[in-house]
């Protein structure tokens, strides 16, 4: 499992930058980022190198931050591989709340991050199908 930060951000210019700015001040390295908008606000999802440090710094700056586990899966960079992984989950009746990918990962295979309500089952199914699950230490 991978530690993910969720940060509450309002829909206004500069609100995402406020978060990245604070993380830069705290010398936190951002590895992946995703956000889905609603009319009023968004939840910014981040994978960073030091999740707990990031949370305490952001909280001290007045952000509402949650750290929780999400599943990271390593994919070989080949056509149809995401589809393959999603099919495994679909066959196992695992519902995905949201999914996003790592932007840059020097010399390493791409990673998809997703949230679900049943990590145990998801892990079992993916492992059974030979899909590699990533831990924080491997990022």
């Amino acid at each position, binding site marked *: 499992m991978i530690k993910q930060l*969720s*940060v*509450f*951000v*309002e829909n206004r210019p500069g609100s995402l930058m406020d978060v990245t700015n604070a993380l830069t001040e705290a010398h936190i390295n951002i590895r992946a980022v995703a956000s889905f908008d609603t009319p009023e606000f968004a939840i910014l999802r981040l994978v960073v190198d030091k999740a707990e440090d990031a949370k305490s710094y952001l909280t001290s700056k*007045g952000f509402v*931050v949650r750290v929780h586990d999400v599943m990271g899966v390593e994919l070989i960079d080949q056509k149809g591989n995401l589809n393959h992984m999603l099919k495994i989950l679909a066959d196992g009746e695992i519902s995905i709340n949201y999914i996003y990918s790592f932007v840059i990962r020097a010399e390493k295979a791409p990673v998809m991050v997703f949230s679900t309500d049943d990590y145990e089952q998801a892990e079992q199914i993916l492992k059974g199908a030979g899909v590699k699950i990533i831990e924080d230490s491997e990022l």
Partner: protein
Amino acid sequence: MIWAKEETLAREEIEKIQLDRLKETAAYIYEKSAPYRKKMDEAGVKPEDIQSLDDLEKMPFTYKSDFRDNYPMGLFAVDKKDLVRFHASSGTTGKPTVVGYTKKDLTVWLNNVARIACMGGATPEDVCQIAFGYGTFTGALGLHGGLETLGASVIPMSSGNTNKQIMFMQDMETTLLVATPSYALHLGEEIRNRGLDPANDLKIRIGLFGGEGMTEAMRDEMHKVWGDQFVCTQNYGMSELCGPGVSGECTELCGMHINEDWFIPEIIDPETGEVLPEGELGELVVTCLGKEALPLVRYRTGDLTRLDYAPCRCGRTTVRMENLSGRADDMLVIRGVNVFPTQIEEVLLKIEEIGPHYEILVERKNRLDVMTITVELIDDRLLDSYTKLSELEKRIKANLKSMLGLATNIKLVAPYSLQRFEGKARRVTDLRKDGL
């Protein structure tokens, strides 16, 4: 048409009635109501100290908080068995303000409403559509009973359901509309949107408006929407005093005539409590006369106005109060419902996922009041999913709805994004200009 001869008496005759009834009221409350006796003893005043109308100043004020402190019926001066009606309005905190009526109170009240209906041009021939919300609020049943007392016929429509309002207006040939002015404007525009011209396609000719103030700008707009034939007046009251029927505009449109044989008005400085000279702007304080169930002496209405004792061209001699100029306190009138920011605060403070700071924005969109409350999210557990955040929004809305009886919009923002105040917080922004 003038409903009662008491509306046209010479000043000294009105004052004689007022003094007789004031003496009776002072003796009545001292005998029948423990909270009043306590207040009067504390103020060092006995019923026999009231020998002239000027002596009214010696009596203590009554506040909305007295209703809260004596909830539900501590201020009542009669046994429950003598009551025939209860009404209730939103209170300042949690509990509503409960009022009660004896049979005589009801008769006096509805006759006073019949008077203000006549002031606004109503006759026994009118077909009256009541578009106030029914329920415990005094507005709907007050106008309902007053118009029936006058001999007009009443359609108890209640508020909302615009299509049905228009259908009844056409099919029943409604001639008189009772509504809040903002709803009347909304309804009129909906009628025009359906290709109808109220002046030619409907029989409507009178609007009796209350529940919220009507500015002159709104009245002008009313004529644009409903046509020049439309006679629109506003009237004033509040449930503590009886409901509607305290005062109303006559068709001369020069202020609201107070039914002075049942209500003594005073204008005071809201800061010092001192009675101000005639014609000055200040807080309206009302003493109810002859009320059995719930006598009320020197009630602080919180409404700012001034009084004019000059006889009116309509023939009435009763004092006129100017259209309200605002509030001495922070009460808001939202879609005709009185809202105190403290009520909103009470709801918000019980919700632990949000912080104690909030802002209230009131706007008028499409003629209707919209209240948006901005709160700071503090609980990170809700960031698991958008569903949790939207459930929080729904819960805040539902709690506010049950406290205020009003739908509100909720806006969640990050902590520390709302302004902090060192002195008195200014949390309310009211963007309604001239009621439009």
